[in-house]
């Protein structure tokens, strides 16, 4: 009959000396009364004694010597395969590479970090690719149907502004949507960056103004340059556009834009830079009408310092009409001087 007080495991722990204090005493007291447990321990003792007869055989020193030689041989071989200096470096590199894989949580974290880094690099790379590929950018803007008109226009302006200085942008046309002679007109600019687009904005819009300046200076079509200069003039921002006007006036190879630029600067003839530019136009512009226009503008100033210029025109200009006009202006200046004196 089995004992219900102590389990087999408890008796084994007692046999192997794993019980201390009260627990040990309890078992000892119980064994005195319980025949089953006493028998179990008796058998356990006999079992132990049997196993004590077992002994581990002695291994020949020759075997040990052979094994030792093999161990040293393997160690030498390992070191020959990996030279000392490289061994340290390689061990470190392998250690570093292995470390993230040493535990599942590290491996998971490493994969997560790699994924996030990949996303960031991808985003930067894509952004860079888009900025360097106007066609892709234009397609992107056009294809985003979820964008509102305002958002699309805003993006277009950004794109136009970004590519303005490059050869990627071509201004196809400038339309005056709403006339305004005090700088409050409304303009539509058609442009092409691989793909044709248009954007609309007021004459106070910096992007629109930049597109107009770009068009005034670089557009291949003289009519477009004329239109751009006119729009800039209508913006009533002389100070900001002065350089463009003067550049067109002095350098444009077609008379149309130069005439338009001359008109734009006429009312600012008091400005020294404008006056200097008009003097150059008067003396050098190949177009007679333009020189005449410049002569009239300068003549109206009544500036005595311009007398030598007028004199040069009066005696050396290829056009007799201009000579006559210059002489008239000179005569007027003399008359005015006489009146004063």
């Amino acid at each position, binding site marked *: 009959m089995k004992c219900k007080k102590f389990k087999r495991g408890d008796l084994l722990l007692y046999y192997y000396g794993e019980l201390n204090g009260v627990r040990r005493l309890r078992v000892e007291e119980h064994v005195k009364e319980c025949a089953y447990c006493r028998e179990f321990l008796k058998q356990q003792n006999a079992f132990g004694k049997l196993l004590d*007869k077992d002994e581990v055989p002695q291994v020949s020193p020759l075997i040990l010597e052979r*094994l*030792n030689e093999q161990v040293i041989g393997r160690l030498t071989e390992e070191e020959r395969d990996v030279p000392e200096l490289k061994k340290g470096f390689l061990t470190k590199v392998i250690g570093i590479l292995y470390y993230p894989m040493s535990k599942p949580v590290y491996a998971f974290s490493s994969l997560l970090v790699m994924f996030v880094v990949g996303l960031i690099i991808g985003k930067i790379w894509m952004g860079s690719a888009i900025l360097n590929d106007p066609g892709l950018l234009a397609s992107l803007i056009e294809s985003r149907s979820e964008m509102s008109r305002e958002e699309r226009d805003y993006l277009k302006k950004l794109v136009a502004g970004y590519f303005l200085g490059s050869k990627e942008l071509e201004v196809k046309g400038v339309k005056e949507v709403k006339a305004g002679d005090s700088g409050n007109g409304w303009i539509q600019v058609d442009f092409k960056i691989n793909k044709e687009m248009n954007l609309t904005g007021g004459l106070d819009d910096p992007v629109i103004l930049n597109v107009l300046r770009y068009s005034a200076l670089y557009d291949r079509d003289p009519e477009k340059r004329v239109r751009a200069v006119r729009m800039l003039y209508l913006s009533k921002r002389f100070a900001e556009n002065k350089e463009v006007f003067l550049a067109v006036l002095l350098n444009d190879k077609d008379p149309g834009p130069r005439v338009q630029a001359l008109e734009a600067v006429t009312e600012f003839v008091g400005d020294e830079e404008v006056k200097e530019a008009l003097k150059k136009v008067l003396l050098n512009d190949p177009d007679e009408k333009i020189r005449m226009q410049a002569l009239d503008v300068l003549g109206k100033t009544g500036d005595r310092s311009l007398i030598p210029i007028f004199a040069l025109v009066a005696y050396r200009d290829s056009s007799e009409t201009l000579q006559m006009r210059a002489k008239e202006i000179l005569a007027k200046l003399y008359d005015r001087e006489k009146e004063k004196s």
Partner: protein
Amino acid sequence: MSLEDKSLILRAQAGDKRAFAELMRRYGERVMNQALRFTRNIKDAEDLYQETFLKVYRNLGGFRFESEFYTWVYRIMANIAFSQYRRRKRFSYLESEEDSTPWDRVTAQNGCPENPIKEEEGRRLKDAIYAALSKLSAQQRIVFIMKHYEGKKIREIAELLECSEGTVKRYLFRAVKKLQSLLKPYYEESLV
């Protein structure tokens, strides 16, 4: 640890393989005895012996002289045995027909027995014990050897094998139960 041992360990730590060879000569017998206890098979014991010393050399830089050198080596060997043979469940003895009598190769090195009858009885008993031990799983066997033959405390075994005390107890109880059922005819004789 003797000063000589300490000097050898320091030299081996600096990469001196002759010093390491001397260490192996000094501790080799104890290590091999232990390997035989764990494996009960000369072939596996040789493998375990070599793996242990290779790992000892590779990790020698980490030995800080805080324990006896043999204790440190023993710990390494116990871990190798426990983890390597955990996968194999049984030592290779049973799988190899060549090694069906494991003591042959060992005793063959020591010449012929003086008393053939006594030797035969002892051999029969050893083989019975061996056969019984070989039927244990690797974990059961290593825990049983540590407890029964080496008298280690359960807490100590758990620490050495990096598992819980409950696990050690479970392996021990199962090992004893299985061995008793297999060896009952042998020790019951002494009870009558």
